[in-house]
């Protein structure tokens, strides 16, 4: 058998371990010691599945916390069959999980926990910011507030906005604990609220702040290159919402985003 055929058959068999082992592969492989070819293939197939499972536990820790070991494993084993890894970087594996969790086969799971796809989406964004270069933080006192109203803003890759149908951030904060711990501290109803977030990196940490819809929309206007004054004029935000937002900006990163 040519090397190309061997590698193709071996990979296909590892990904689909339940199928019969092709005769030509059986004729080519010398199993080791006391194990036969079926066991050989299951060693490699299991190694693949569990390696991917471990990567997904790391990338989607809060989904794992919510589902528990068994259900998480079941979901992920199905996921890796549907979406074999194409990338060398396991940290980025799982980009299709939000869509996968929504699929028709998962109707029962999603009717019980409709927030799961949003939680997966949140984790993807959070970790993508985590892996970005830490931004330089300058002294905010140097910022010239007089120019604020006519300033336009630019947001670097360590700042992101998110609108989700569910308020999943509190769940995410409990990712290293248990669902019971979460329920002791929070009412499950809060998860069902619509949520607007800004995620930003500061001093090596990714932070998440919940915004009102008006504040979120205000940021979208700024992102659309309107000046601060133009954004204010076009915003529905109340004076209190703007005041909160300005306080938040000046405490965190206004000097990083002003042009």
């Amino acid at each position: 058998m040519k090397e190309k055929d061997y590698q193709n058959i071996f990979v296909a068999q590892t990904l689909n371990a339940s199928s019969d082992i092709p005769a030509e592969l059986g004729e080519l492989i010398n199993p080791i010691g006391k194990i036969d070819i079926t066991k050989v293939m299951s060693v490699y197939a299991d190694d693949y599945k569990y390696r991917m499972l471990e990567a997904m536990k790391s990338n989607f820790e809060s989904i794992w916390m919510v589902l528990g070991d068994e259900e998480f494993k079941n979901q992920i084993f199905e996921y890796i069959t549907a979406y074999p890894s194409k990338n060398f970087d396991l940290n980025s594996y799982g980009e299709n999980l939000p869509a996968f969790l929504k699929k028709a086969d998962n109707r029962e799971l999603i009717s019980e926990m409709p927030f799961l796809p949003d939680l997966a989406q949140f984790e993807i964004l959070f970790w993508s910011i985590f892996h970005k270069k830490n931004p330089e933080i300058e002294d905010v006192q140097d910022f010239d507030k007089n120019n604020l109203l006519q300033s336009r803003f630019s947001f670097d890759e360590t700042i992101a906005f998110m609108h989700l149908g569910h308020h999943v951030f509190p769940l995410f904060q409990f990712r290293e604990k248990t669902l019971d711990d979460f329920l002791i501290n929070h009412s499950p109803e809060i998860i069902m609220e619509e949520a607007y977030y800004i995620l930003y990196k500061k001093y090596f940490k990714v932070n998440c702040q919940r915004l009102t819809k008006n504040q979120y929309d205000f940021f979208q206007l700024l992102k659309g290159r309107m000046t601060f004054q133009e954004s204010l004029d076009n915003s529905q935000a109340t004076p209190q919402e703007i005041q909160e937002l300005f306080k938040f900006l000046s405490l965190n990163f206004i000097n990083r985003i002003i042009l």
Partner: protein
Amino acid sequence: MTSTINKNIQVGVGLRHTHFDHFEADKPINIDFFEVISENFINTRGRPFEILVKLREKFPICMHGVSLSIAGIDTEVNPNYLQKLKELIKIVEPEIVSDHLCFTGLAHSNLHNLLPFAYTKENLARIALKVQAVQESLGRPLVLENLSAYFSLKNSVFSEAEFLNELAERTGCGILLDINNLYVNSVNQNFHPNDFISKINIKHIKQIHLAGYTDFGDYLFDSHAHPVYPEVWVLFQEMIKRNRDIPVLVEWDEDIPTFERLEEEALTAKKLARN
């Protein structure tokens, strides 16, 4: 990183996120160098990268990859991967850039595993071309590690040691000898490890890896989940007495102990090499 005192070998450990708190707290470090899994740092400039940069100020770093797939059937290594590897090399300036003599899957399905292939003349010629192309692209020699394999291929005409020797002769690449892999294979495939040791050309060996295996009864599995076993230490002593200038690294990837315990394991290599 070559030792100037021939009885004081350089010992290192794998850099793992489990120990990041230890490094951030500036606790003492008694080993000589660190090795990073290249893929864990290629796409991050966050906390893991910051810690690597900080350690790089004080310690030599070796880069060890798991995705080169040098024996894969594609005629060239994934150019995107190679480009990112080059960028990381430029920043880290590692002592050694290594990977494994294996394939890891296909372009559309990466199994993230180190998979055996046939040690044939055709594969030797094909892989030698790829190694040369990678070395030209990186502007430095590549170092390739022997595998732990749970089967062999009947159409092989070389042993693994012969294949590695020949590849090194043809391309100038180095060999990373994983003694745990060698021991696991010798038990599983029923050969004497000294057959490999006597065949492998010591002049090509640029680094030694040590780790612990898991005994599943029917076979040994290269799990990196335990301390180095006595049988592996014996082989290590056999090997290191032939050349005490080869740097030695202890890998521990599952049930990872404290950094102090990991260091203790690495420093055992130093003690044994002195005897």
